[in-house]
């Protein structure tokens, strides 16, 4: 319990020649929710995408420094990136369902992981959709196109898809930015429920949301980690003036 799930030390990140993360060091605790906040362009997405090495596919992008998950180096020579990404799920800022049916979207991760019996599949798909608060809306049309869903439904579908492979860590990059208040509440309840089993890192621009769902909050600015602490402390009595200005909306 005391060992951090994710340990980051002196992590820098570059897109080509431009350095966008500067010496990030932080511990992300196991089975808790850590919120990343900070102004647009400060490097939150870049940082979460570094944890599951999503940035590998961007040409000329590279990170230096250390990121450990359960003590093992994510950027180690012998790291199996595919296996890593199966353990570290991700929900993106923009929903990105596949041009398949609702069912096949959720089942995709299972299929590429070797599948399972038809019944197992159906069970996992239903459970994942339920957890993502989408089941009631789609249970009668599981085999119609995912593109026919609304934007908010598509985002919940992407959450269900990520949950179906049962990752240990869930990275969520502004998962609720396209959702209405009701769906947002559902997602927040989901996060609350999930944290007993998963380690969750969530990027959000919504201060109330960060305050509601997270245990720890990290404040980023211009590629640097300004402050990290218990969410309550960060919002009530932050150490840094910058943090206080940002969380109270007096920023800039």
């Amino acid at each position, binding site marked *: 319990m005391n060992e951090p799930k994710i340990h980051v030390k002196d992590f820098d990140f570059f897109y080509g020649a431009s350095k966008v993360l500067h010496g990030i060091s932080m511990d992300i605790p196991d089975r808790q929710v850590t919120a990343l906040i900070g102004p647009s362009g400060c490097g939150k997405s870049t940082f979460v995408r570094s944890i599951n090495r999503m940035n590998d596919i961007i040409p000329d992008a590279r990170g230096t420094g250390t990121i450990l998950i359960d003590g093992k180096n994510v950027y180690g020579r012998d790291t199996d990136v*595919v*296996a890593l*990404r199966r353990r570290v799920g991700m929900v993106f800022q923009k929903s990105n369902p596949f041009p398949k049916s609702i069912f096949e979207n959720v089942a995709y991760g299972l299929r590429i992981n070797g599948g399972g019996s038809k019944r197992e599949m159906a069970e996992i798909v239903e459970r994942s959709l339920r957890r993502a608060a989408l089941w009631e809306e789609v249970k009668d049309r599981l085999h119609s196109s995912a593109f026919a869903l609304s934007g908010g439904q598509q985002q919940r579908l992407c959450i269900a898809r990520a949950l179906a492979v049962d990752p240990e860590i869930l990275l969520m990059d502004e998962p609720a930015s396209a959702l209405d208040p009701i769906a947002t509440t559902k997602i927040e309840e989901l996060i609350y429920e999930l944290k007993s089993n998963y380690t969750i890192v969530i990027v959000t621009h919504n201060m109330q949301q960060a305050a509601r769902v997270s245990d720890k909050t990290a404040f980023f600015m211009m590629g640097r980690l300004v402050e990290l602490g218990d969410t309550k402390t960060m919002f009530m009595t932050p150490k840094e003036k910058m943090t206080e200005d940002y969380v109270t909306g007096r920023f800039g």
Partner: protein
Amino acid sequence: MNTTFKSRDDRGFRIGTGAIAALVLLVVLGIGFELTRQSLLSIAKFGFGFWKGTTWDPVSGEFGALPFIWGTLYSALLALLLSTPIAIGIAVFISELSPRALRQPLTYLTELLAAIPSIVYGLWGVFVLVPAVRKLELMTPESWKKIPLFKGPPLGVGMLAAALILAVMVIPLTSSVAREVLKNVPSTQREAAYALGATRWEAIRIALGFGRTGIIGAIMLGFGRALGETMAVTMVIGNNPQLSASLFAPQYTMAAVIANEFSEAADELYLHALIEIGLLLFIITIIVNLISRVMVRSRRTA
């Protein structure tokens, strides 16, 4: 004030582009009309029997287009079968696998292939491909020759040579359209796959699935190109109108018979019959092209 200007601009633009589109449509209709007018004698004499007739005998005035239709469709279909995996492979390699520095040169190279004149392909076919095909035919075991697919004397010229040359000619077109389709697949699709633990190959399959309709369209465009190709095919197919399933048999295509016999067509009916073949080819290619364009455009389906 501003808005009125804007909408007037907009209207002018709409009318302009609309007029051009209408003009193109008019030209197409005009061609169809003229082809019909010039083939009235044959249409009147043979009716729909022209589609089904198998004899082509200018001396006795007996004209049937089926062997040519067959030769055209068969060669184009074979070319499609041969070229599709290679063309898609090239597209996937260039857009998904190759190092970025290689991308531009490879693209340029495949596009260069498309710029080679048909006659040059034909010459290459006559001097390189046909002898090679003949060697292959000579090596075919006797027992295989009983199968309809391999019947016939080892001439070199024939359906196989035609299909091969068509395949080579079609690959640049299909692969460049398929590459364009893949390039337009949003990177978020690949990211979604990778984030679920997909391998590179699995992510490529997602991209191909996303661009499915566009890629089918690319293949159909290649098919349309193969249907109309004349010069190179004429030089290697053997120019013998017969309904044969054999890869080794010399056959004939619609475009080839028009090119070869147009200047010899002495009597009116002969000429009209040839032009009617042109009309059939025109109709078939328009249909194929229309379907493929629609498919390339509608990228998003599920």
